[in-house]
């Protein structure tokens, strides 16, 4: 399946994400999920970025928390709400929120 996952938290949900498998996987970092794209804990980027997937982060949620695209890990693409709608309808058949 082509699965889009909204990742909305920083501390929980990785266990669920790690087990998911999909032919095509997109991970959209929203809400406090944006810290996965921006924060290094003792120098190390979030382990979820090691998953084989396309990564996106919502610009509005990034900016609200004091970050901008220059803080974002190179594996992650910054997107807007409009882009998210297109991803949902064009790139993924199923979408979940964790």
């Amino acid at each position, binding site marked *: 399946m082509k699965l889009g996952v909204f990742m909305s938290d920083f501390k929980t949900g990785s266990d669920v994400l790690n087990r998911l498998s999909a032919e095509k996987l997109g991970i959209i970092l929203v809400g406090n999920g944006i810290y996965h794209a921006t924060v290094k804990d003792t120098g190390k980027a979030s382990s979820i970025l090691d998953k084989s997937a396309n990564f996106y982060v919502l610009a*509005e*949620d990034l900016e609200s928390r004091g970050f901008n695209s220059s803080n974002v890990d190179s594996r992650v693409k910054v997107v807007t709400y409009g882009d998210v709608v297109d991803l949902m309808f064009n790139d993924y058949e199923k979408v979940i929120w964790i």
Partner: protein
Amino acid sequence: MGKLTIGCFSSLVGSLSLDFAVKLSEAAVKKGHSVDFWVSSNATMLSKKGQRAFKDYSALAKTLQELFATGKFQATACEACAEARGYGKEDTMEGWKRHSMDWYLASTFSADRVLLIGGD
């Protein structure tokens, strides 16, 4: 153009998840899609009439009214969830419907995409 059904169970203020759901609806409608919006549990607060807009709180009433006006957006609150919180029919914001949970299930039947935003 497609149909998106959003189920939202998060609380009004304190979690920005409801703001996310409303902004996503706005973006989808702007691109010509239609949106069914279901609120259950604490998210039924979104359907409450007379919320006063403070800058410390997200105030979504205006955006919702604009969305209703497009004709491509319908929103329904879980009736029992609302009653349990002391919101009667007369407390419901204009444009909102109240139904039981089967409304949401029925909406998913014809939806191209379903996004359930589950909990705080």
